């Protein structure tokens, strides 16, 4: 099964493999703001209800997004490091 950004626990790091293109406008937006293949992503914080939204560290930036958008980011492998 494909791993998604939403599958990562707090402080767990994944590497971006691809984007779910079922909503092309969304994957474009995600790319534009700074997510790309090969980037390390690490969830840092979660919202109170349903862990939504989440904030993610990517390339030294911190980006906040909702889970329904985050699930479009597909991951390669899951490392268990503490930080990106």
């Amino acid at each position, binding site marked *: 099964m494909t791993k998604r950004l939403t599958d990562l626990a707090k402080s767990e790091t994944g590497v971006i493999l691809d984007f779910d293109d079922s909503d092309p406008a969304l994957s474009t*937006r995600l790319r534009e703001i700074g997510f790309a293949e090969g980037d390390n992503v690490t969830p840092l914080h979660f919202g109170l209800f349903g862990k939504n939204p989440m904030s993610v560290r990517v390339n030294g*930036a911190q980006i906040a997004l909702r889970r329904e958008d985050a699930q479009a980011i597909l991951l390669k492998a899951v490392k268990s490091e503490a930080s990106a």
Partner: protein
Amino acid sequence: MSDGQSLRLALLGAPNCGKSSLFNALTGGKAKVANYPGVTVEYRKGDFTLPSGQAIELLDLPGVYGDCGHSMDERVALDAVRGNLEGERAPDAIVFMMDASHINTHLHNVLQAKNHGLPIILVLNMMDMAARDGITIDLPALEREIGIPVISCVAVRGSGRSLLLDYLEEWGGDVSFGSAATPKEEKGDLKALQAKARSITSTAVSRVHQAETFSQRIDNWVLHPIMGLAILFTILFVMFQAVYTWSGPAMDLIEMAIGGLQRGAAAILPDGLITSLVVDGIIAGVGSVLIFLPQIIILFAFILLLEASGYMARAAFLVDTLMAKIGLNGRAFIPLLSSFACAIPGIMSARTIEQERDRITTILIAPLMTCAARWPVYFLIIGAFVPAEKVGVFSLQGLVAFGLILVGIVFALIMAAIFKRTLTKGESSGLLIELPSYKTPVFKDYIIGLWDRGMIFVNRAGRIILPASILIWGLMSFPANATTTAQTWAGKVGGLIEPLLRPIGFNLEIAISLIPAMAAREVAVSSLATIYSIGGTNADDTLRDLIAANWTLPTALAFLAWFVFAPQCLSTFAIIRKETNSWKWPLFAFGYLFVLAYIAAGVTYHVSLAMGLS
């Protein structure tokens, strides 16, 4: 273009990279600057002259990540660069700005921008912060790889801008002679450009791994799901308490000054109409609102600090968990928070919301946020009817004001939930914002920002409240043989709507004051001041004393309830008309706010009567 025509440069780049700061520094402009994405949603022009005498016209644009134009503010920026703005010619060249700390995530944006077909330079801003975070950028290598000039910059410091100005001196000449090169087109889709950008940064940028940055350490507290919300609530609570408890001495001073002015004017001027106009009309009317200047200053001292520090985007993150449950768009929070100052910039900043129906929902509920113009009304009535006691360490008046603000927020959320399930149905999402690093506000910008907010309040007193006070005075003073308020022209006009308002506990004076308050909500206060000042016998009575003596408690509470919704404020409806490009939404907003205001006032009045309050 060497005929002395000014050179037009467009400031392009991601949100919150410092475009407006540079714009202000170079042109002496007054664009709003703060530390969150989406501060600028409209383009702005400014001029400056290079030492060589070359005139530059600088375009400050909303931040944009790519070249798609997903939202209205992004389309403004792209239209400006492409020369598609009505009545504006295309720029001669692009100054592309980038936050140096974010070069790893944003470099593909400048590759995309090379395809606009204009000469372009890359300005790496906040180089000092990047260095502090352990980022080293090999500028010559970067320049070679992306094929355009790269200049390092610290926009907020004079010394940090000197390299850029030196460069513009040289490059500007080339652009004006048409000899500056337009970069070679970047081929490939976004994915390919990202891959290229990543390979460039892997060689030209090195980053010393840091265990945890300062911002991250703060965020461990501030973004904690429970502690974070507790901190947010505490900040807001302290803010509204401070507005109440710190403003007392300054208000007393202003009150004394106004009283002195009235006595002085009455002593100098001949008895009669002129004295009445100056004392009861102008000084009483304008003074009744100006007295709230200290509160406004304290309120904005907090708001500006939150905006400049980087906390705003964090607050948006914290509250989003609730917004998502209601079905509100994630980007709605910042427009709504801005509406606490004034709904007009709030409604405009809804442009950052991609989905049209979500933008409309946000615009419709923005007037329910407690704008600065409602404060004078709240202060007046609370001051007259709520004792200045302490509940524990808290001011009771401050608690009541905080309660009114919460009621506004709760109704905004309820209405949003209703609209999202009826008028503006559809999926909502779209938080997707960068959380900026925390920054210490630039002291000078902070003071100027505070001064500007204060002056806006004072200017409104001159522009709107002064003419409204004179108008009300005129209508109250004639015909000359009138002995009661009802017999005056104002009484006759107010009498037309008074039957409609009597069932919700409003008296004739309130009915009169609500009509000119259509211009701006605080005019209700100045009008009441004029009305009671003309009728008053004892010159030393403050408006607060007169209201306390003349109104019953249920009437006062109903009046407060009305102003939580207050369908007044023509400028708000004008901006809704402009931003939605239709009459439907401003009329709808007016209608629903009026109905809510009427019901809320009526329910409050009758419930408090039934409870035996008097």
